């Protein structure tokens, strides 16, 4: 075991993927000489050379589009989109090409492309640097959408994403890049938990709390706080947003009877909306209360000095838990 930050564990995972398969190439803005604005690709260009770790022009559609061509040629491109809010210029190439080409070509063209995206807020950034665009991609058939939350998972999941023959949009919780954790650098992919499987990170009995990315840590903290209050929360790290591991969530909800979902992204059409609907369809008769969503407001991401009012934090999550339990809460007496 080695103690690594999440960013360093991604770096280690990328290094391993580059070493294991010569068809793996990294492409992105500032990822080579600089090592990426978050240093996730630090040192990799020096180690593998400029045709394996490629500094690209400032052109997100160009990065994704050329990756499609590289996939046609048999490569396994790993793209870095520098910030969440910069992915939109590449939207057409992702949605119309990356997601659909295997289907359109009747299975002849494979797109083993990994699109790495630092996402979410909480770092006091300028606008367009704190977004949570995952629902757009979870809505798009043909993509797999993954969000890691901790160093150990990051090391394995980035390699699983690269090894996948399907395209993967891989969200990295940028405000947790510097969180440290124990990473088994000898871990083999064969023994690893598949990236499509959710993890129960805190067992509990009263409420199922589902989240992903940066809020996994917040949810765990909330569970600890609730325990002092006599409430037992089961925290699930979803890990895969498309497809969702409903089996794990459903098994938990059947025990607890209560479901709270939290994410930084807005509520409307979000991952939580889909999860609430699907779980309600699957085990309505086990629910003691309506599913509760604790999400960002449906607003453009606000300026840094206001972002604490946008991001679900420990107290807002616990308020959601109170709603689920029918205890006094922010909605008490308010017509929903």
């Amino acid at each position: 075991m080695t103690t690594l930050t999440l960013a360093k564990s991604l770096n280690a995972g990328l290094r391993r993927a580059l070493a294991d398969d010569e068809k793996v190439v990294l492409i992105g803005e500032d990822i080579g000489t600089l090592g990426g604005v978050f240093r996730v690709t630090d040192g990799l260009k020096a180690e593998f050379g400029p045709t394996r770790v490629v500094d690209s022009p400032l052109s997100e559609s160009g990065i994704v589009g050329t990756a499609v061509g590289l996939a046609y040629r048999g490569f396994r491109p790993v793209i870095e989109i520098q910030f969440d809010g910069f992915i939109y210029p590449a939207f057409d190439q992702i949605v119309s090409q990356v997601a659909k080409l295997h289907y359109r070509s009747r299975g002849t063209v494979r797109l083993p492309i990994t699109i790495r995206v630092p996402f979410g807020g909480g770092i006091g950034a300028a606008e367009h640097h704190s977004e949570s665009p995952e629902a757009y991609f979870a809505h798009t058939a043909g993509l797999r959408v993954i969000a890691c939350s901790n160093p150990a998972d990051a090391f394995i999941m980035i390699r699983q994403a690269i090894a996948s023959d399907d395209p993967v949009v891989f969200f990295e919780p940028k405000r947790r890049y510097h969180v440290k954790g124990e990473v088994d650098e000898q871990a083999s992919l064969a023994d690893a938990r598949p990236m499509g499987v959710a993890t129960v990170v805190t067992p509990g009995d009263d409420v199922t709390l589902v989240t992903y990315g940066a809020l996994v840590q917040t949810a765990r903290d909330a569970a600890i706080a609730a325990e002092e209050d006599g409430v037992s929360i089961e925290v699930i790290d979803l890990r895969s947003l498309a497809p969702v591991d409903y089996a794990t969530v459903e098994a938990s909800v059947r025990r607890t009877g209560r479901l709270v979902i939290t994410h930084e992204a807005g509520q409307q059409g979000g991952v939580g909306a889909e999860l609430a609907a699907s779980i309600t369809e699957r085990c309505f008769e086990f629910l003691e209360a309506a599913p509760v969503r604790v999400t960002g407001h449906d607003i453009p991401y606000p300026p840094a000095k206001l972002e604490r009012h946008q991001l679900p934090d420990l107290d807002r999550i616990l308020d959601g838990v109170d709603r689920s339990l029918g205890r006094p809460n922010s909605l008490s007496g308010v017509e929903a």
Partner: protein
Amino acid sequence: MNPSDRDATGLLTRPDDFVQLVTPTGERRADADFDPWVSDVDTAALGRLYRDMAIVRRLDTEATALQRQGELGLWPPLAGQEAAQIGSARAMRDDDFAFTSYREHGVAWCRGVGPAELLTVWRGTAASGWNPFERGIAVPQIIIGAQTLHATGWAMGATWEGSDAAAIAYFGDGATSEGDVSEALIFAASFNAPVVFFCQNNQWAISEPVGLQSKQPLARRADGFGMPGIRVDGNDVLAVLAATRIALDRARRGEGPTFIEAVTYRLGPHTTADDPTRYRTEAELDEWRGRDPLTRVLALLEDSGVDSAGLEREVAAEADRAAAELRSACIAIADPEPLSVFDHVYVEPNSHLERQRTHYVRYLATFEETDATAAGGAGAGTEGGAR
């Protein structure tokens, strides 16, 4: 006729010229830069280029008829652009790769795409008709300009593998306004990618004239991106062949991308759903009919002592046979199985989609039971529709 233009690095760049080796009336014009690239094209080879053009024109006519008769949902005719497509595609090697839009039936023909493979998309039975890796041509691209990036990425990969294969990106005048095309030109230039940007300027993007896309010859765009641009008569198959050979040779020698503007004309509608009489005149059409890519080759062959009338008859008979084959192949394309809608969305098993598929299988089965009930008379009705 045109003095050669070489930039500071010695690259051939003639963005303001109009390179023409065969005039519309079939006169052969000398060009010191381009002639050496087609010195091997004797009358037999020219006859073969004529054959290609005549056959794809006949196939195009047949496909339009098939659409009118309800056998195809849509067809984007290539009529008028035969020389641009045949001249460029016949310059390719087997291990090169074409990334086209949706009108490049002539390119597909040259890459060995079969009749049923060509029509699958337009009959609406699948989103692609051929295996790109068997044919060296990507599946057709409907998003305007998107394929130029794919060609560029493929070409970057080829150099990283040490191959001297090259890609050709086919796109139109309208596509030059898309951001993806500019991004592709930037990537290709920066990475010195072996890719030919082959722009068929057919004057119209549905109803919008090329003047709305550019205030200057499109080939001049190349200079801004740091690559040579060549403007060629796209209705002159010999000039197109020469220009494409020059560009592919540069690509193979590690000299990077070239932009070719093939000036041509779409004689037909944008697609069978379009009505071009709303936006262009009969006079304009007549003018371009006078620059037909096929008649000039026959005239040149006649001048060179070939029995062009005999060739025309012989090729017409062959083209009729190809059209008949296209028709029967089209009608024989079976409707796909309903559950194939779920095929190839993912390579790997996907729990979400498998669940939806399972539900839909059950749903469809309820109709089978209902049908069986109807066929078997009264008595078994209560089982029908069980979910």
